[in-house]
């Protein structure tokens, strides 16, 4: 696929929005190139959803401007609504109707007319492999199917810009893959996708550009590779004898990012070395350890987690709650 270097189809400048005590958006700037998937990455409460709500005309910003598909979201929301699709964190469907009926009703509310709405519903069900379930009530659908139908519902008018607010949160890996495939498919049609996610992995898989957002503003932006270059990963080595830990650390020092000390965990015989982002090959690591005479039981290259992204970019954990959960999980 060629790289689209189109002009910004979603353009935000200095967006601010306060809800009571919470400054949800605090000077958000964003430029999403046309024909790409753009990832808004951030923890709960970072302002991702509020940003999407502003772009999709659901929320009016206190300050700043946002232009979507050439139209200002505050001055001409009707024009924006004719050009966008929105799929939120829930399956925004009528559970007591069939999948097909849901799509038809949405089609009619998009003013397609009765006949075209029927036709579009059939087309979409067919194209996204839901035709077999089209005449079943949505309440009988699995979580993954609901999300897929929800995603399809936002495609009724072939939107210029599609907003996906955490499209895969809470889904099993298989359903997540299906959503990802659908999103990739859409971009080949020329739709620009702005998706929010808490998963670095998801942004990495789908997005050509990522903006990391925290406390209502963008704190880093770039391609996934550029961001990872700033974040780096870790090499985790488990040695058979914990007296080897020091030796292992010295052996891997050549690979480690400078200025960051490795973590030694004598109890678990674990050495964790922060590394830069040059692609590392497992055999190189093993060779280094081997030459140093260290018996490694397990060696792994760990991609940075969202927590580490935030640690690196903000110097603090993603959120208090998140880090507590992590502690318990460990």
């Amino acid at each position, binding site marked *: 696929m060629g790289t689209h270097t189109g002009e910004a189809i979603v353009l935000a400048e200095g967006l601010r929005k306060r809800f009571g005590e919470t400054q949800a958006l605090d000077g958000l700037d964003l430029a999403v190139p046309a024909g790409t998937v753009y990832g808004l990455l951030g923890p709960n409460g970072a302002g991702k959803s509020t940003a999407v*709500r502003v772009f*999709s*005309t*659901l*929320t*009016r910003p206190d300050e700043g401007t946002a232009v979507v598909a050439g139209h200002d979201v505050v001055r001409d929301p*009707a024009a924006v*609504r*004719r050009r*966008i*699709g*929105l799929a*939120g*964190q*829930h*399956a*925004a*469907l*009528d*559970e*007591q*109707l*069939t999948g097909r*009926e849901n799509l038809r*009703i*949405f089609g*009619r*509310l*998009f*003013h397609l007319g009765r006949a075209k709405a029927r036709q579009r519903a059939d087309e979409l069900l067919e194209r996204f492999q839901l035709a077999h379930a089209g005449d079943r*009530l949505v309440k009988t659908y699995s979580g993954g199917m609901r999300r897929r139908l929800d995603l399809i*519902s*936002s495609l009724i008018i072939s939107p210029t810009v599609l907003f996906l607010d955490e499209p895969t949160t809470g889904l099993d890996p298989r359903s997540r893959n299906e959503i990802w495939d659908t999103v990739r498919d859409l971009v080949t049609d020329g739709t620009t996708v702005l998706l929010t996610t808490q998963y670095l992995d998801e942004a990495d898989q789908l997005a050509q550009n990522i903006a990391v957002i925290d406390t209502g503003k963008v704190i880093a932006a770039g391609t996934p590779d550029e961001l990872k270059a700033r974040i780096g990963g870790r090499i985790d080595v488990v040695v058979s004898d914990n007296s080897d830990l020091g030796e292992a650390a010295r052996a891997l020092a050549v690979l480690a990012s400078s200025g960051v000390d490795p973590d030694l965990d004598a109890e678990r015989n674990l050495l964790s070395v922060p590394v830069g982002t040059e692609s590392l090959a497992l055999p190189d690591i093993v060779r280094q350890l081997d030459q140093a005479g260290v018996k490694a039981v397990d060696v792994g290259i760990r991609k940075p987690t969202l927590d580490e992204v935030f640690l690196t970019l903000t110097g603090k954990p993603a959120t208090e709650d998140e880090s507590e959960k992590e502690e318990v999980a460990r």
Partner: protein
Amino acid sequence: MTAPAMNSTFRSGLSDGLTVMSRNLLKLKHQPGQIVATFAFPLVSVVLFGYVFGSAIPIPGGGNYREYLMPGLFVMGTVFGVMGALTVIAKDNGLGVMDRYRSMPMARSAVPFGQTASDLLVSAGSLVVMAACGLLFGWRAHNGIGATLGAFALLLLLQYAVSWVGVYLGALAKNEETAARIGPLIFPITMISNVFVPTEGMPAVLRTIADWNPVSSATIALRELFGNPGVPTGDLAWPLANPVLATAGWSVLLLAIFVPLAVRRFRNAGL
């Protein structure tokens, strides 16, 4: 806005409203249980209240208790109609359907207008069932076709007003659970009235509330129009002395308050 533009805005608003209405009616097709419940409520209440209470409650001035009771049951069924709109709207809110609607190029007022329109149709249907149940158990309308139709028209007006209250409360409630908690609060509203017993015997404060309760004036209005027993006489509170006017007045007042509130809520929610 130019006249043609306004005209087309109005037309698309109307067609969106009809779409939302047909969506609600379509749902009934898939929920035979809901239809059974709609039919069962009047049947159960006529049997329960008519025969269980009726066996022990004497009617002032004599008469058949079921004839006395039916107008109140019509009103009760109508007031409980608030739950329909409230539940549907709150559920849509919880699932994010409202957000999707608001991100679409449809008229934002289509949801409340479509919802109340479908409520009106459904409740007209359940009035027919309720009347049939009543006829089966000995209730009659004695004042001719004009007064009878007038009574049903008054009920539907009240129902339409109540349905707007439901739409507004549903839009305030963030999800179905909150909506379900509001339900039991409707019981006292229907009970502190003259639906089951005359208000004369109630303690003063309660009696004043009951006398001014729209449920009471609507009940008396129906008794008057149907020619059923239990129309109080003597020194009465104004709404009971002018029940038809009072019921129509209450309905118009509710509409005047809740239509703008609900429409504004749908236009601006989340902004």
